[in-house]
């Protein structure tokens, strides 16, 4: 994309330095725990040691005797206000505090309110709870088996642990195509429970002002407006109306989806503040964060892919069992209980596909958030990219060649997938070719042959993913009925500077910079002169927030549309100033000039001043605009990743030698920031591929509940990522942009697994579930007689 503005203006395509950074590198950010209010109280939560147990008794006497402890709040207390249960984003129900029983280890049981953080912790430790353990179900297959204990006894008519059945696609056509396929491959793929583990945990300060009846909540949330509405709907009966609720999302220390849900801690803090009239702070610690906040993935997938002998892929069938924990608290659009999992035909032109997903309750924490991806697209990409690789190996065809043969071709766009999505644009072969050239694919394959002859284990893995982001068109996309538009409001000040507010909320993505660049591009006002604000529901226009890579596709588009409204008015003012017909004016970023007389021109700054001092008669003063952008379609970023691994045949350790990532996110706003997003995304693909997992033992004890055993990649394990781009603009997005924050997390794990399986295929290894730990590989190598 050609640059249309100078570096001083800093429109699209310029790697300008981030506006956020001066405060962060000085330690002057304002994260929620940095805020202290006078008279603030602290909340700490008693959590259950059992995964499933009846609560016989909660004795608060010793806790109340701790100096500084003011109250112990239990489910019984909240039940008086009918606040002990709350709805989930998927219209299931979730306990705020339990009255009868606990459903997972680390579940909130009671809350202690105290004058200091330490007193609250002392009080928490002094609360005595008597439990009677109940049978525990942690395996969703067992949960659905006959005779399994029914977990949701609160639901009167519930006779099993089945939540819902959902299917998509053409079942009979898929069955037929698979029956007729000359070659089929089948595989069971488990994508385990993982956690986003943002370095800042979750927390809030709730402050109910009794005098004016207004509740202000500083809160780690990615979606402040939606939270405000949810609070109003849930707590309306106790007098909290929406105009009396203000949600402020301050600087956020990483979100990745984990800061979309409403956690019980937030609600209890609000209740405690409403009751006491004092500010109440709740900040969870890391173990609470890992053990009780929303998980991601936990999909048990069974897939079958068919092809002709010549390598033409034909049909895909997927059956999935989704483990949701004790309630369905996934963060998905209402219409799609399995998110966008049905984009699982990926980059390939299949004739038929069919997907079924069944949700199950287990004694685990609720969740089903995305972990830096758009509603289950990682699960979809992982499955199709594994299956295509499996087919290539089965046919004895190079995995790159099989992909080239079956990619959706550039001339097929807009392309209607076998599962009904309309892909906006793509050049899949272009990205894969570029990645192969960059990494030297042919030479690597020759090296692999030589190494294999010497008994060394080396593998090359490809992932050619297609994402689906920018939710979403209101026709299909809502959360609790709220349509998934997003917004931008711009005010141009008389001196030509501007403020712009958005319905989204950055958690590190750099919105203060990139949104300013969009406006600089559209208006010619230097990005440095544009202040961007988000996260305060009292000032920002309504929007659904930042997740699922939707900020650029939706709010970024709103910025462009709002800026164009301003430009339309600016044209009228310019015509007045230049005494010319509006249609005779030519726009270039920053000024209008008269067609054929370029010396007769006026700048956007002059126009802004005139808007307040010399506007045409009959026109309203001011230069402001707002846009609520409802995208006509989703955007489909894509890319091809190639990973080279060497495996230590003695220890089973997988060493990533090289990783090349070629991404295509359409037109780019800030190349520096895009590269940073890809680096981070790749690392959050590496983590689950090799290290991260939260598992449970038979009685529901969490494994991976602290950073001692939940292994997040450090700088040592993380390879030096090599990135490159192709550019295929989105035809329907006003800026031709597609979004990029999550592409790499979606695409990377399959490339790593494909590389490891590629290294071991000749030994008879067909698949390994992530995370591919040294222990798993070592066990396989021992089974195959490679190591002692």
């Amino acid at each position, binding site marked *: 994309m050609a640059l249309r503005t100078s570096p001083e203006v800093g429109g699209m395509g310029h790697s300008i330095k981030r506006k956020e950074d001066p405060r962060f590198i*000085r330690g002057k950010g304002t*994260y929620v725990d940095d805020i202290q209010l006078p008279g603030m109280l602290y909340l700490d939560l008693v959590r259950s040691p059992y995964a499933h147990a009846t609560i016989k008794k909660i004795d608060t006497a010793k806790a109340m005797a701790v100096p500084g402890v003011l109250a112990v709040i239990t489910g019984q207390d909240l039940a008086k206000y009918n606040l002990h249960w709350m709805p989930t984003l998927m219209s299931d129900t979730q306990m705020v505090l339990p009255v009868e029983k606990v459903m997972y280890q680390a579940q909130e049981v009671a809350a202690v309110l105290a004058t200091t953080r330490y007193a609250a912790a002392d009080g928490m430790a002094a609360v005595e709870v008597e439990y009677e353990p109940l049978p525990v179900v942690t395996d969703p297959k067992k949960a659905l088996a006959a005779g399994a204990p029914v977990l949701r006894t609160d639901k009167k008519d519930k006779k099993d642990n089945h939540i819902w059945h959902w299917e998509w696609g053409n079942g009979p056509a898929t069955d037929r195509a698979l029956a007729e396929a000359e070659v089929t491959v089948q595989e069971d793929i488990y994508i385990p429970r993982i956690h986003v583990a*943002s370095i800042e945990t979750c927390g809030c300060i709730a402050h109910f002002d009794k005098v004016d009846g207004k509740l202000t909540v500083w809160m780690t949330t990615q979606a402040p407006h939606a939270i405000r509405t949810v609070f109003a709907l849930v707590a309306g009966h106790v007098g909290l109306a929406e105009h009396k609720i203000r949600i402020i999302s301050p600087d956020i220390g990483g979100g990745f989806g984990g800061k979309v849900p409403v956690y019980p801690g937030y609600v209890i803090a609000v209740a405690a503040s409403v009751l006491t009239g004092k500010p109440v702070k709740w900040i969870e610690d890391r*173990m609470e964060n890992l053990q009780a906040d929303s998980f991601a993935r936990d999909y048990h997938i069974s897939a079958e892919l068919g092809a002709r002998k010549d390598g033409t892929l034909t049909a895909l069938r997927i059956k999935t069992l989704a483990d949701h924990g004790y309630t369905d608290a996934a963060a998905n659009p209402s219409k799609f209980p399995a998110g966008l999992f049905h984009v699982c035909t990926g980059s390939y032109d299949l004739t038929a596909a069919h997907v079924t997903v069944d949700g199950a309750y287990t004694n685990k924490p609720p969740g089903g958030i995305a972990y830096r991806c758009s509603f289950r697209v990682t699960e979809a990409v992982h499955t199709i990219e594994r299956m295509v690789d499996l087919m290539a190996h089965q046919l004895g065809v190079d995995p790159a060649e099989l992909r080239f043969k079956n990619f959706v071709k550039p001339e097929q766009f807009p392309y209607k997938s076998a599962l009904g999505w309309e892909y906006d644009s793509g050049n899949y072969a272009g990205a894969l070719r570029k990645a192969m050239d960059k990494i030297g694919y042919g030479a690597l394959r020759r090296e692999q042959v030589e190494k294999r002859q010497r008994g060394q284990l080396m593998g090359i893995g490809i992932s050619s993913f297609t994402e689906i982001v920018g939710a979403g068109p209101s026709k299909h996309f809502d959360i609790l009925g709220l349509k998934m538009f997003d917004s931008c409001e711009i005010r141009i000040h008389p001196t030509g500077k501007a403020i712009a507010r958005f319905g989204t909320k950055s958690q590190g993505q750099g919105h203060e910079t990139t949104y300013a660049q969009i406006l600089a591009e559209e208006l010619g006002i230097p990005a440095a002169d544009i202040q961007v604000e988000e996260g305060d529901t009292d000032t920002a226009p309504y929007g659904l927030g930042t997740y699922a890579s939707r900020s650029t596709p939706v709010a970024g588009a709103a910025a462009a549309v709002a800026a164009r409204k301003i430009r339309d008015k600016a044209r009228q003012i310019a015509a007045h100033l230049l005494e010319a017909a509006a249609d005779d004016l030519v726009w270039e970023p920053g000024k209008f000039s008269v067609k054929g007389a370029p010396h007769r021109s006026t700048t956007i700054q002059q126009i802004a001043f005139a808007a307040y001092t010399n506007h045409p008669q009959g026109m309203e003063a001011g230069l402001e605009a707002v846009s609520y952008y409802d995208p006509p379609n989703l955007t489909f970023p894509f890319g091809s990743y190639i990973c080279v691994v060497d495996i230590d045949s003695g220890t089973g350790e997988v060493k990533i030698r090289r990783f090349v990532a070629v991404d295509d996110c359409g037109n780019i706003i800030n190349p520096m920031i895009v590269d*940073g997003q890809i680096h981070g995304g790749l690392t959050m693909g590496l983590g689950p591929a090799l290290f991260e997992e939260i598992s449970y033992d038979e009685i529901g004890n969490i494994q991976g509940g*602290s*950073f001692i055993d939940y292994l997040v990649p450090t*700088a*040592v394990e*993380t390879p030096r990522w090599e990135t490159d781009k192709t550019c295929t603009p989105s035809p329907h997005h006003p800026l031709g942009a597609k979004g990029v924050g999550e592409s790499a997390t979606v695409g990377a794990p399959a490339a790593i697994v494909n590389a490891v399986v590629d290294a071991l295929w000749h030994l008879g290894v067909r698949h390994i579930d992530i995370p591919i730990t040294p222990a798993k590989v070592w066990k396989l190598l021992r089974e195959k007689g490679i190591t002692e």
Partner: protein
Amino acid sequence: MRVNLSVNGEKHEADVEPRLLLVHLIREVLRLTGTHIGCDTTHCGACTVLMDGRPVKSCTVFAVQARGKELMTVEGLEQDGTLHPLQEGFMAEHGLQCGYCTPGMLMTSYAFLRKHPNPTEDDIRLAISGNLCRCTGYVNIVKAIQYAAAKLHNGHQGGA
């Protein structure tokens, strides 16, 4: 218990509970909130500060252990309105995104560069392996530290 200590060259005195963590003294008593808390197990490094020049994870040090010590936090990096080359480097090389791990990264790198003025990339990666970052994938953090090493090597007088 009384604690006398110096933070960023300024003397402080506080009366604290023996169990008060150093990070809480810094953040909640002295109100220097640039030092962050990211875990409970000394793994993430967001709370890293320098105690007599050595990086320590202040969530695992009692405030009373800092008695008589000289502490340095992220707020002490900038001198007389001039950013430290590390701060410059993190901005120039896009070595931060959400900013939450950044103060700890800066302090670890500061101590590291004083001992290892000409580090290799592998040296840098090992040095910051006690500081977790979820946003950047470390590539640009490494570049930021290299930027600072080069600038310090070229005779910058900015305090390191």
